[in-house]
């Protein structure tokens, strides 16, 4: 075993704890109906797909629903939360929206919906991450 191999192995052992925390992000504008999927995590991109995004209005409060599809045959333990932005793009009560646990069986679908905290909520931002990456 040469010196280079030893150093690489040792470096891998040191940095093994560094996990990628970028999950999948979805943005839904309930005013224009536009939605965009920003898949930031290379690991999650191969496991979960955003199949559908819909939105509606409940008594003046915007509601958004995202359908997540598993691309693997294994059970996935995920967390997702939906934060809301107002017309100016400012987050409304960001800490008020919690991550919810989602257990997604192999090749299954799950819908995740959220309601804006108040009538000012216009754009929903969904964040999906693997539970093991939650600190």
């Amino acid at each position: 075993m040469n010196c280079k191999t030893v150093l690489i192995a040792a470096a891998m052992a040191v940095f093994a704890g560094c996990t990628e925390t970028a999950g999948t992000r979805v943005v839904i504008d309930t005013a224009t109906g536009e939605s965009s999927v920003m898949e930031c995590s290379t690991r999650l991109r191969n496991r979960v797909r955003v199949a559908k995004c819909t939105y509606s209005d409940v008594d003046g409060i915007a509601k958004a629903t995202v359908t997540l599809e598993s691309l693997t045959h294994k059970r996935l333990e995920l967390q997702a939360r939906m934060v809301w932005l107002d017309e100016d793009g400012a987050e409304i009560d960001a800490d008020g929206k919690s991550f919810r646990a989602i257990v997604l069986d192999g090749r299954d679908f799950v819908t995740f919906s959220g309601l804006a905290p108040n009538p000012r909520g216009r754009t929903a931002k969904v964040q999906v991450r693997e539970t093991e990456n939650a600190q």
Partner: protein
Amino acid sequence: MKACYIGLAALAAMSMAGCSTVTARETQLDRKAMTAALEPQDVRRTVEKMVDSMLQDEEFIKEVGGSRPVLDISGIQNRSTMHLDMASITDSIRTKLLRSRKFRFMDRATSGEDAQFMNDQAMNGLTDPSKAIAAGQQSAAQMYLYGALTEMRQQVDGVTDRYYKFTLNLKDLRTGELVWSDEQEIRKEQTKSTMGF
């Protein structure tokens, strides 16, 4: 070979750098489960679910007719074995419902202070009588929230399984009918390994 030893020593120093130091940092509000007990993220999820459920119940919205009904909170009974500040949970629910601008709330907990203020304004001789707030004008709660937290637990072969259920009801004070109800179930397990440190 000397360079190899230096490189290994540098990596060892990096990996040991955190040893024997105490550090504090702010963490995310929602973490992954650490125990089978109720944790802050479970409470936050419960509050969010209850508030969202109430705000999107179309039948209930139809009944209140777009008005902002006045509510009060009777309290959530803690029938679990865990100590939890139930008033803190109802405070969070009330705060979120108020901020939705769909409901108004009475607060019976501060009624004594209200009476004290009104009494002082009427009696102390310092307040302009035309500006003093007279008693008997306060609004009244039309409905009130109440609920319970229950728990089931079992332990089998080093695995602790805990099931919690939050139930929240909204009762119309005039008719005595329950106009909305929902529950949140949480199941957690904790495994105690027989090996390891």
